[in-house]
């Protein structure tokens, strides 16, 4: 096997020195009846070229070169090539969690920069080193709010990504943490009246998404006002992080849970992505996951270390803030590089391009059919209502090498034949015009 750095002579010598007759001696602790005496049923050992061929074939059985109008929690943005060039360096790719700070300053400093940028972008004071993704991050944010407030219930807007809501349900179901849902208005925003009704004295937190699942930007300040008046915490979940280039950060929130996939992370059929939690300094010690902090070495030189680990499972075990251990560090590093490339001006310009594309596209769709949720600002997604079933429309589009919007009938039957469209800087006018044309047929 070509990955194994041993010759038969090496193995023989080692066995000899250990004092074993054969390698089987070392597996003697396994009761004989449980030893596997056959080959595993996995494909035979392949040459590298065969592996390449195998995955080429799989890849060619997937859409490639299609115009993509799907968002719904996973966004197609251009990925500068510098990202992969840098994270492919073995020093980033093949290192472990930076437990030994003196030989892990590269990862530590990069994550410290990540934390800083996330704070800067979200308007929060502290950010962690990443969560698995936006959905689990949202769930962990709820558990964090429970720890902070001591209250034991939550309200979640119905306009939050349906799969995020499912994950929150899974995480909280055995914690005695009932979740109630809050309705949305005609303009796509949270129904404040309904929200007011739903919040009780037991409500630890209210979780909304902005831009929400329909692409609508919430009035975070207004929601925060209401939530805080009721003594609960506001969690804002952000699925399309690129919006922060032009959308006001949710500074009024207590916790921000963000999916950073838009920051240079490939769609990759849904992962790996990286979530991140950001919060106020006062809640710092309740945040789950790793934190990198600045410190000094014996000579007074600046350096970075993992810190506040008494929150974590390896120290605190069943009393930890979370069970998370391995996180998404390399993805956070990708995001850091992406954010460095676009930076202060580029993120704004890029977000403006997204806005322009979606505005143009929704305008064109509006000429032919109905675009829902007028009256509140949107970013790069919008909901189109059609006569035909969205699945049928998408079949039609697929034949023209276009992947249409995300059908909403299943998760939001109340919207009828509707689907969620997304346009980014990668959707050309030509693509948009063709899609509008095809949908309108």
């Amino acid at each position, binding site marked *: 096997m070509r990955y194994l750095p041993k010759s038969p002579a090496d193995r023989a010598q080692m066995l000899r020195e250990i004092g074993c007759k054969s390698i089987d001696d070392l597996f003697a602790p396994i009761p004989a009846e449980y030893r596997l005496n056959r080959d595993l049923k996995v494909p035979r050992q392949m040459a590298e070229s065969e592996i390449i061929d195998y995955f080429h*074939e799989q890849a060619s059985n997937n859409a490639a070169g299609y115009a993509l109008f799907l968002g719904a929690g996973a966004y197609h943005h251009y990925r500068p090539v510098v990202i992969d060039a840098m994270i492919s360096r073995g*020093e980033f790719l093949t290192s472990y969690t930076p437990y030994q700070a003196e030989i892990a300053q590269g990862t530590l400093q990069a994550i410290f920069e990540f934390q800083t940028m996330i704070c800067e972008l979200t308007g929060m004071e502290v950010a962690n080193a990443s969560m698995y993704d936006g959905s689990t991050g949202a769930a962990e944010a709820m558990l964090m709010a429970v720890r902070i407030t001591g209250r034991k219930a939550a309200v979640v807007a119905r306009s939050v990504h349906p799969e995020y809501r499912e994950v929150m349900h899974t995480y909280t179901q055995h914690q005695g943490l009932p979740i109630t849902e809050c309705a949305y208005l005609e303009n796509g925003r949270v129904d404040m009246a309904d929200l007011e009704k739903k919040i009780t004295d037991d409500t630890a937190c209210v979780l909304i998404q902005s831009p929400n699942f329909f692409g609508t930007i919430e009035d975070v300040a207004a929601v925060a006002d209401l939530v805080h008046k009721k003594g609960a915490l506001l969690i804002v979940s952000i699925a399309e992080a690129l919006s922060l280039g032009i959308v006001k950060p949710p500074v009024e929130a207590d916790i921000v849970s963000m999916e950073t996939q838009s920051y240079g992370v490939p769609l990759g059929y849904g992962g790996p992505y990286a979530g991140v939690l950001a919060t106020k300094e006062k809640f710092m010690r309740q945040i789950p996951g790793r934190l990198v902090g600045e410190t000094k070495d014996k000579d007074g030189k600046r350096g970075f270390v993992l810190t506040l680990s008494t929150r974590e499972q390896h120290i605190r075990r069943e009393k930890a803030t979370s069970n998370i251990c391995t996180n998404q560090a390399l993805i956070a590093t990708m995001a850091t590089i992406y954010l460095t490339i676009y930076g202060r001006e580029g993120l704004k310009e890029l977000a403006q391009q997204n806005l322009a594309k979606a505005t143009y596209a929704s305008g064109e769709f509006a000429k032919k059919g109905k675009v829902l949720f007028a009256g509140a600002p949107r970013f790069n997604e919008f909901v189109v209502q059609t006569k035909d079933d969205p699945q049928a429309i998408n079949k039609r589009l697929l034949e023209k090498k276009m992947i249409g919007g995300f059908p909403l009938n299943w998760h939001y039957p109340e919207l009828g034949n509707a689907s969620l469209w997304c346009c980014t800087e990668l959707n050309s006018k030509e693509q948009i015009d063709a899609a509008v044309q095809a949908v309108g047929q």
Partner: protein
Amino acid sequence: MSNQDIKKATRHVNQNEGLIFERSSPGKKGYRLAPLDVPEVDYKAALGSAAREDLGSMPEVSEMEIIRHFTRLSTWNYAIDLGMYPLGSCTMKYNARVNEVVARFPGLANAHPYQPAEVSQGAMRVMKTLSDCLLDITGMDAITLQPAAGAHGEMTGILLMHAYLQSKGNPRKKILIPDSAHGTNPATAAICGYAVENLKSNSRGMVDVSALAAQMNEDVAGLMLTNPNTLGIFEQEIHKIAEILHEKGGLLYMDGANMNALVGKTRPGDFGVDVMHLNLHKTFSTPHGGGGPGSGPVACKKILEPFLPKPVIVERADGTLAFDYDRPKSVGRVRMFYGNYGMHVRALAYTLANGPDGLRQTTEDAVLNANYIRKKLEGDYELPYKSPSMHEVVFSDGIQEQKGVKTGDIAKRLIDYGFHPYTVSFPLVVHGAIMIEPTESESLEELDLLIDAMKSIAREAEEDPELVKTAPHTTRVKRLDETAAARKPILRWKPAK
């Protein structure tokens, strides 16, 4: 400082680099956008009060500076690609480059999770094939690839147990966890609403079967067991353990972090495990990336299958694949979409590169390496448990501590010798643990260098303990003050006022 004995490393000139924010200056650009082909939109008008003012101190730098910044940073890291990384319990093995290449094929890397199934068959086939491989490797009946890491898999597995027991009428209250367990085990049990009950190891470093029998009752949902356990010891009475649990209606959860000791040699499904997770970022070689991403598939027996997170991948009669969302008994989703898919691709590539013979040889080499180290260092370092080692060996600093040299000091001194340290102070059952997992990826030459280094440090601890206690001496930063970091945390950079 006497460094004549250091054979593996030398000091070399290395670039300094500040924080990226310290390089920023208005007007520098690392990006350029393609011209906009639709009408511009005034975002302030469009967004009104939701419009952002500015992006504060986000950096403004050029591409050249970005390349230098991250390249320089990278040179400060140790990595598998540079040398042995014997972190016990972490299985830091070779991360093949071909895995990175295939994971980036546009048809896979650019696939949207919601694109229609008819244009996603290749992506799904990868998941299905990997699932089938993992099922035969574990000897289990059903699997989900959704969990994003080991701890996430643990949660999924315990939720399966909970749902199953609930379906039988009572989810029960407690989970038994050996004192040697990884911290994620108790943390997971807690998240799932279970109380944790500690299970003591016996003098051979294994589960005390009679204690287990005594502790097991109808309040106990099951046991979370790592096998080989965190001492690197195979639980030889595993069949009895399973029996005791099953007799009282409980279930056996296996933390599969140490599967690298077992693949192709024995199967948890055969020795009584009901549900387990795998760490693709350990056993199946997906890169750790400085802390993640990982992937923690959960495999289970038939009885638990109805409760798996949804969707579940299914093969239709016509050979096409689909996601089945119609799973009324499912514990629900543990993550959006289908998991850390990119890791599935890599893990399958690893499996294909090995085949049945390669996987078996891999396991054998991993166990051989650990036992070779054990043999060579026994005597120099205290071996608290004498039971046979599988893929890792746990010593302690018992001898060195007499000179005030602790496991953490020895670890830091290993850095000077050109190694990444072993795992320090875990498992907790060993005072001053020195937990070494070489994996199969180390050559005899590299093992001998480690052994030499460890012996040399043992001598230094004897003759010049201060040298060890103040290590490392050859790194660009000296020992960092973790206490100060935690006392007054500085968790982000701020512009000078």
